[in-house]
């Protein structure tokens, strides 16, 4: 699996050239900052920095861009925890438990747990990438629309765990989200639900809608609250407590490992990526947990699952980029542009001819993920001061930042208007106890579900037996069914035991 001479050559390149290292910390800081700014995507950060790489050699250029990618992977978690705005779509699930932890005065612990899960997630993904880059890429190539549809259905299972006290309200919120996600022109060219508004042709812009549903709605609820954390003593920013969060996350190696594996696999699938991986990992963590009722109320396992998955998705999408020359998402598309700027073409030829360069990049990625830990802690300590700002200043400031961020997505007023409309809908849903998170998940998955359902229908000609020709999809469906069956059985046994205990007691 490993080419030892290429490994030695990679180490030689890295140890002899300072230029490969000098860009790592600036890249991480840029990534953390941009990732933490609502509306500024990882892609935008990398696109802004792309011209700078023209004047660098190939290896430092790619290392600089991957550092931004790594930093932004965690950066999105910081506002998700502190103000319930996921800095990127990949941090949606981090808000589910990160923000409740912050409201309870456990913001230091939530940030520490998120950071350590991110660092370990990136490390695991690159170690795995190191060992399996070629076979993994071949598997990814076999993923068709049916397999993607199965992945989207798997994501929909999350709705079941986000329903809150009323199953009917939760499912209605999720269905509402799915339908909102299908507004606009679908892949078959049919236009629905646009109300004649031209910018709805491409569908509802997810980032402003998500900011409105999750954040602005919460901000309206906090208008009459003096501070984000009501207890003054709990507002401290403490390195010790951040480290305690790190230790908390290490108590759940299975959650972290499962999140990382989900992140790597989903991240490697072109067009899916970290936005879905964090939701799936969260759903799996909740489903398999002995205390699922504590999720959504500040359970650290929710933060660990989400952050390990969204960070490890980076390794997965880099695998597809290196092995096939296909960008798994928009961030790796920028990386592909950097490849082209240096006359390098990704794919099997690149791996066989330039294996030492690939290994050098992977070594550097491992170093970046380790460096992310101290840099991330410093960043968290600075960002956590937000809990000391009175809400009478913080609420207007965050609303304005969200407005600027929503404008930055498309460069027109459609973003701010979407933000406003969804903040009102979100506020009403929160007030009447509908889980807005289910609507966000539906919104994220709606288009993916419809596109892949249509593509599968077109390929199969509507023949249900087509599924039998796709062993990968059957395998995933069977695994899902077995896994859900086992959980239901375990829960049934647990309830029976509990009832028996009550009768005896």
């Amino acid at each position: 699996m490993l080419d030892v001479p290429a490994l030695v050559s990679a180490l030689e390149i890295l140890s002899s050239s300072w230029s490969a290292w000098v860009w790592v910390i600036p890249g991480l800081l840029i990534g953390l900052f941009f990732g933490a700014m609502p509306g500024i995507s990882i892609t935008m950060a990398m696109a802004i920095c792309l011209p700078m790489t023209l004047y660098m050699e190939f290896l430092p250029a790619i290392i600089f861009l991957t550092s931004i990618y790594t930093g932004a992977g965690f950066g999105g978690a910081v506002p998700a925890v502190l103000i319930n705005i996921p800095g990127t779509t990949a941090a949606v699930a981090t808000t589910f438990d990160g923000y409740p932890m912050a409201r309870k005065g456990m913001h230091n612990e939530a940030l520490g747990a998120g950071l350590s899960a991110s660092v370990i997630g990136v490390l695991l993904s690159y170690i795995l990438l190191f060992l399996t880059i070629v076979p993994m890429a071949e598997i990814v190539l076999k993923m068709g629309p049916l397999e993607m549809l199965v992945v989207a259905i798997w994501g929909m299972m999350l709705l079941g765990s986000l329903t809150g006290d009323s199953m009917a309200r939760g499912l209605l919120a999720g269905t509402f989200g799915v339908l909102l996600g299908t507004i606009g022109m679908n892949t078959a060219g049919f236009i629905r639900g646009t109300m004649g508004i031209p910018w709805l042709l491409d569908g509802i812009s997810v980032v402003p809608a998500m900011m409105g549903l999750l954040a602005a709605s919460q901000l309206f609820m906090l208008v009459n609250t003096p501070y984000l954390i009501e207890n003054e003593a709990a507002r401290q920013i403490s390195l010790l407590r951040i480290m305690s969060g790190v230790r908390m996350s290490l108590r759940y190696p299975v959650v972290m490992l499962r999140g990382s594996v989900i992140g790597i696999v989903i991240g490697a699938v072109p067009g899916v990526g970290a936005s879905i991986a964090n939701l799936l990992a969260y759903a799996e963590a909740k489903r398999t947990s002995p205390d699922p009722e504590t999720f959504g109320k500040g359970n650290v396992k929710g933060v660990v699952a989400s952050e390990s998955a969204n960070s490890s998705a980076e390794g997965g999408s880099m695998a597809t980029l290196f092995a096939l020359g296909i960008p798994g998402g928009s961030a790796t598309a920028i990386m592909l542009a950097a490849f082209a700027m240096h006359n390098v073409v990704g794919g099997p030829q690149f791996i066989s001819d330039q294996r030492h360069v690939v290994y050098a990049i992977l070594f550097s990625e491992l170093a970046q993920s380790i460096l992310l830990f101290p840099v991330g802690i410093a960043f968290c300590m600075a960002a956590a001061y937000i809990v000391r700002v009175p809400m009478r200043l913080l609420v207007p400031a965050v609303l304005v930042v969200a407005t600027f961020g929503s404008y930055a997505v498309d460069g027109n007023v459609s973003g701010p208007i979407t933000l406003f409309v969804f903040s009102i809908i979100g506020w009403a849903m929160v007030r009447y106890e509908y889980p807005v998170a289910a609507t966000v998940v539906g919104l994220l998955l709606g288009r993916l579900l419809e596109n892949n359902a249509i593509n599968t229908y077109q390929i199969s000609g509507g023949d249900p037996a087509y599924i039998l020709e796709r062993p990968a999809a059957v395998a995933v469906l069977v695994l899902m069914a077995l896994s859900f069956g086992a959980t239901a059985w375990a829960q049934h046994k647990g309830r029976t035991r509990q009832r028996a205990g009550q009768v005896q007691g």
Partner: protein
Amino acid sequence: MTERHARTPAQPLAGAVEIDWGQLLLLAFIGGWILVFLLDARSTSLSVHNLLLVEPAAIIGLLLCVAVLPQCFRRRAVSVATEEALAKRRRERAELANIALLAAAFGAFVSTLETVGFDVGCWLFTAVAIYICGERRWWVNLSFTTVLTLVLIYGYRAMIPFPFPLTVL
């Protein structure tokens, strides 16, 4: 402890069915939108490629609306309005009015952004919103508003590739 027991004219009889108007309105909005969306999709085309996901999802959504509907009605518990309960209700109404004011200001801000410019709009909205949220020290309000506007305008202008419509800066 002296507690004045009173029944306001607006208070419904104990044990009567109470309608949660807010929730009913929200449910009507969601259900109404789903129905309009389904009819719009069907009027576009009855092709499977158009309705494959939309039609079943919309029907499920409408059935769920029917399932949630009874939750908008509940039997009022037997209770007597105390001075404390009335004060709580007044406080809740005042808080709701604050939220409505902030939402209205936010709506005005986003809908006039391109007309008044991001600089003027941001400055005005922040100042008004800070006042609504309870900051009464004018110098804190104006200095925070000015610094925030400058940082956001220059910061975002440096970071994003789109031009912001501006009036002053």
